[in-house]
C-alpha cells in the first residue's frame, strides 16, 4: 500500500483520501478498507473557521475551542471521542465515519457489506438503530453530523453544494452506501448558519470517549426549531414530528426512552 501527497483536491486518482486517519487506519487494519493507494489530503483540504464557513480539514479539537461556532457544534465536538482523537480527527472525516455496528466492523457479511442478512436485528443490537432500521439496524455514530443537521448546515464539495441531510442516504438492497458522495469527490467546506440558540446532549455508556447511545442536537432560528439525533438510525436523523413511529428492537427500546427525554430537554433548553 502506497501513501502519496495530494497535489490538489482533484488529485485522488482512485486513491483513498487520508486526513486524520482515526477512522481510515483502523478500517484498513480490520481489512474492511483495502486501498491500493492512500492519498494524504491534509495539505490541500481547507482548514480553519472563516465566518460561518468551516474548512473540512479543521480538527474537532480546533472546533471545540472556538467561540465563533454554534454551541451545538462545539458541544458535539467536545463530547466526541478523546482529546487525542479530536486532535487528529477532521470535521469531514467525522461526518463520513462508518457505523460502530460490531457485525459490520468485524466484517460479517451483513447487508451493509453487500450481504443478505442484518445480523444485529436477530442478534446483539443494544447499541443499534431504533428508527429506519428494517433493512439495516446500524446506528450512525457522528455527534457532529447530528449537530450540523440540526443547524441546517450546507456541505460544499469539489463538485457541488448540498444540504447536509442530502449527504446521507439510507442503505437499500440496490445500493448499500450510506452517503451520496461520489468516487473522487471531497468535502471542502461546511457552511453553518448561526442560530438564535442551539445545544447538543449526549448519552454515553461512560463519561468520556464513547460513541452516543443517543445524541440530540437542537437549534432554533426565529420560530423554527430543528432537532436531529445521533446513534438512532443508519444515518444522522432529522426529527420530523415525534418519535412515536420508532421501531425499536427487543433489546434497544431503552434508547427510545433516552431519546425522548433528551429531545424534551434539548428543546426546552433553547428557550
Amino acid at each position, binding site marked *: 500500500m502506497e501513501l502519496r501527497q495530494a497535489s490538489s483536491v482533484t488529485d485522488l486518482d482512485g486513491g483513498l483520501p487520508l486526513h486524520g486517519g482515526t477512522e481510515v487506519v483502523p478500517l484498513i487494519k480490520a481489512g474492511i478498507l483495502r486501498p491500493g493507494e492512500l492519498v494524504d489530503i491534509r495539505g490541500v483540504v481547507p482548514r480553519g473557521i472563516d465566518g460561518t464557513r468551516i474548512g473540512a480539514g479543521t480538527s474537532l479539537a480546533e472546533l471545540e475551542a472556538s467561540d465563533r461556532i454554534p454551541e451545538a457544534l462545539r458541544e458535539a465536538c467536545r463530547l466526541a471521542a478523546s482529546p487525542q482523537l479530536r486532535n487528529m480527527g477532521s470535521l469531514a472525516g467525522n461526518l463520513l465515519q462508518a457505523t460502530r455496528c460490531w457485525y459490520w466492523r468485524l466484517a460479517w457479511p451483513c447487508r451493509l457489506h453487500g450481504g443478505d442478512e442484518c445480523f444485529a436485528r436477530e*442478534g*446483539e443490537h443494544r447499541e443499534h438503530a431504533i428508527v429506519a432500521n428494517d433493512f439495516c439496524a446500524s446506528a450512525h455514530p457522528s455527534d457532529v453530523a447530528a449537530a450540523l443537521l440540526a443547524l441546517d448546515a450546507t456541505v460544499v464539495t469539489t463538485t457541488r453544494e448540498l444540504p447536509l441531510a442530502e449527504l446521507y442516504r439510507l442503505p437499500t438492497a440496490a445500493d448499500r452506501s450510506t452517503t451520496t458522495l461520489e468516487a473522487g469527490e471531497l468535502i471542502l467546506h461546511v457552511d453553518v448558519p448561526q442560530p438564535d440558540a442551539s445545544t447538543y446532549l449526549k448519552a454515553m455508556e*461512560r463519561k*468520556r470517549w464513547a460513541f452516543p*447511545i443517543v445524541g440530540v442536537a437542537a437549534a432554533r432560528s426565529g420560530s423554527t426549531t430543528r432537532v436531529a439525533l445521533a446513534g438512532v438510525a443508519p444515518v444522522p436523523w432529522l426529527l420530523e414530528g415525534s418519535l412515536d413511529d420508532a421501531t425499536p428492537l427487543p433489546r434497544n427500546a*431503552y434508547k427510545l426512552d433516552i431519546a425522548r427525554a433528551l429531545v424534551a430537554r434539548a428543546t426546552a433548553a433553547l428557550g
Partner: protein
Amino acid sequence: MARLIRTEKEVEGRYEEVWLVVEEDALEQWPSGPREIVGRPATRIDGLERARGEAVYTADLKLPGMLHTAVLRSPFAHARVVRIDLAGALASPGVHAAIGPEDISQLEEECGFQGAAVAAVCADTFAQARAAVAAIDVEWEQLDVLLDPDEAIARGEQLDEPRVRTRGDYEQGLADADVVLEGEFRTQVVLHNSLETHQSVVQWVGDTLEVYISTQYIWGIRDEVAKGIGIPADKVRVICHYMGGGFGSKNSPDDYTFIAIELAKRTHRPVRCALTRREENIATGNRNATIQRLTIGAKSDGTLTALGGEYVNAVGWSGWVAPTEGPMQLLYSCPNVKTTTWGAKINQPPMKAFRAPGFVEGTFGVESLLDELAAKLDLDPLELRRKNYAHHDAADERPFSGKSLMECYRRAEPHWDRRLEVRSRSTETVKRGVGLASQIWYGGGGPPSYAWIRVGSDGRATVVTAMQDIGTGTKTAMAQIAAEELGIPLEHVTVSLGDSARGPYAAISAGSSTTPSMGPAVRAAAADAKRQIIEIAAQRYHLEERVLDLRGGTVVSADGNLSTPLEEVVGLLDDAQILGKGARGPNPTGMQVLTFGVQVAEVAVDIETGEIWVERIAAVHDIGRVINPLGASSQIEGGIIQGIGHTLSEERLHDPKTGRILTTGLDAYKLPTFADVPEIVSELVDEPDGHLTNLGSKGLGEPPIVPTAAAIANAIRDATGADVRQLPISREEMLRALREAEQRTAEKEKRGAPAGV
C-alpha cells in the same frame, strides 16, 4: 529447625492439603501502629525507573536475532479443522518456521471456543508473521454451539460436580422466617485487559531455556514449562523484572509460551510471542458470567434464619468453578445456609482467575439482596449487618485468626451518616443516595516462601528473592520490611527479584498473597542478618549482645555510650558479607484467615435517562498490619476503579447465535475513564492479626474490588427505590429497574397501601 507438617494451602478460596517443610517463625510481632519505616507511606523504590521508561518489561525486550510470532486462532466458537496446510505460510516473506496441531498439544484441531490456538508462524517482523498466518490454508467444519449456561447444566455439560455446601436446616430456616425474599442476579463477562498483553520471549542458552514472561508466578511457569517440554526444572530460567498487570490472568505459561518455545527450538533463535489487544479481548481469560438465584429468610427484627443460593457459573470451555457462593457462606452468622454452585461448560473462552474470582460476583448478589431485605423490613442496612455479624467462620466451624469488620463498620459511620444530606441534594430528575456493602475474601498467603539478605561492608543491604512484583508495589513493601527489621534507612536497601536463577522460591502473586507470604520471610532474613551484625558488634566493642541494637543505620548500646554508624561496624568485613536467610512460617492451625471491609458509595441517578454518576466511595478495610499506607491507598483506588468498570460499563458481548465475540477492542469494550472515577476516601484499620506470622499482615490486592458493585447498587436503591439485578448496570438495566419500581409503587397505591420507599 525445619519441620514437616501436613497443612491446608489456600489460593483464592481453593484449598488443598499439602505436605510442607516449614521453618519455625520465632520472631514476635511488632506492637501495633506505625514503626520507623513499616506503616509509614513510602513512594515506590522503582517508581522513577518505571516513570522514565527505563524499566524493561517483557514487552520492551529485544534480544539479538529475535523472531516474532503470530497465531492462527479459531474464528468460530466451535469448529474442527478438517484440513490445514502451512505451505503458504512457510513460503511467505521473512518466515522462519510454522507449526500446527500436529506439532504441540497447545495447538488444537477441535476448537471449543473462539480464539483457541490452531497454528503459529514466526518471522523477522510481526507484520510478516501476521501476513503469513493469513496465508495458511485451513478448512473448517463448524459445529453446534452451546451458549446458554442453564441449558448446559440441564444437559450435564458441566466442568465439575455441583458443589453443595450446607449448614443447619435450610428448609426449617425458611419456615421460621417472618419474611422471605428471592432475587435473581446476573453478572457479565469482564476482561482483565492488562496494559501489557500476555507475552513471552524465549531463548535457548546451551541446554537451559530462558523464558522472559509477563507473569504472576515465576516458579509456576518454571515448573509447568519444564513438565510441558520434559526437561529438568532447573534447566528453565524464568525472568520477569517488571510487569504490566495481570489481575489473575497470568498465573500460567499458556499457549503463547509453548508456541514460542517450539519455534525457538526449530529456528535456534530467540522468539517472541506477544498477543495483540484483540487476542487479549478474546482468548486470554476472563471473569465468567454468573446467574445467581438467591433466597433470604429473616425474622422481622432482621435476624437471618435462612440463606440459599443456586449459582450457575458460565465458566466457558475450560477453567474452574470459582467460589461465587463464598460471600453467602461466610459473611453472616446465619445458622441455616444451603448453596449449590454449578460450572457450565459452554463454547466461550476459558475463564481465568480475576481479582477475587467468585467473591466479586457473589458479593453483588448477596449484599444486594440483604439491602432489599433491609428496605422490606425498614431496617438500617448497617444495623442489619451488625445484627448478623459472624464472630466465627460458621461455614467451616473455625475461629477467624483476626477480624476487625465491626471496627470497619464503626469507622464507616461518618460516611454512612452523610446519606440524609446526600439525598437532600436530589432534584426532580436526579436522585441521590448512599449505599454500603461488606467485603470478605481471603488474603492470608502461606508457606513456602524464602528470602535472603546480604549486607556488605558499606552497611547496605540487598534482599534477594525470586518473587515477582506484578505492579502492586510489593518490591517497595519488602524493602520497608527489611529496612525496619535491620534498623537501616529505606534507601540503603535494594531488592533483587524477578529471576528464578537468582534467589530462592517465592510464592505466587495471586490471592492477595505476595505481601503476607513474602513479608514474613523477608523479615526473618533481616532478623537473621541483624543478629549476626549484633554478634559482630558485641565482639568488636566488647559488649554484651543484649545491650546492643541497630537503629536508623547506627549500632547503639543501651547506655548510649556506643553510637556508631553501621558501615563503620561492618567496615572491617572488606569483601566478606553478612548473609541472612528467612522462611515463611505456617499459617495458624485450624483458623480461618480472611480479610474484611466495607465500602460506602454515593451515587446520583438521572431517572429519565438512566445515567449513573458514582460521586464518592469511602472504603474501610481490615487487612491486619499495613506495611505501606501509600501503596495500600493506591491498591484501594485501583480496585474501586476496576470495580466501577465492572459495575457500570464493562461487558464482553458475543453473538447469541454463533457465540462469536463482538467486543474485540477497547472502543467497544468500555473500561472506565478518569472522568468516571469518583472521589475515593480510603482507610485501613491497621491492627496486626495476632495469629498470623511475624507481621500480622494480609494482602490487599483483591479486597477493594469485592464490595464496590453491591455498594453502588445499594446506593442506587437508596436514591431511587429501584432494585438493579444485573451487571453492568447499563442504561438499559437502570431504566428497567426504575420502571419496575414505578409499577410496584403504582400497584401498592392501587391496593391502598402506603407508598413504599
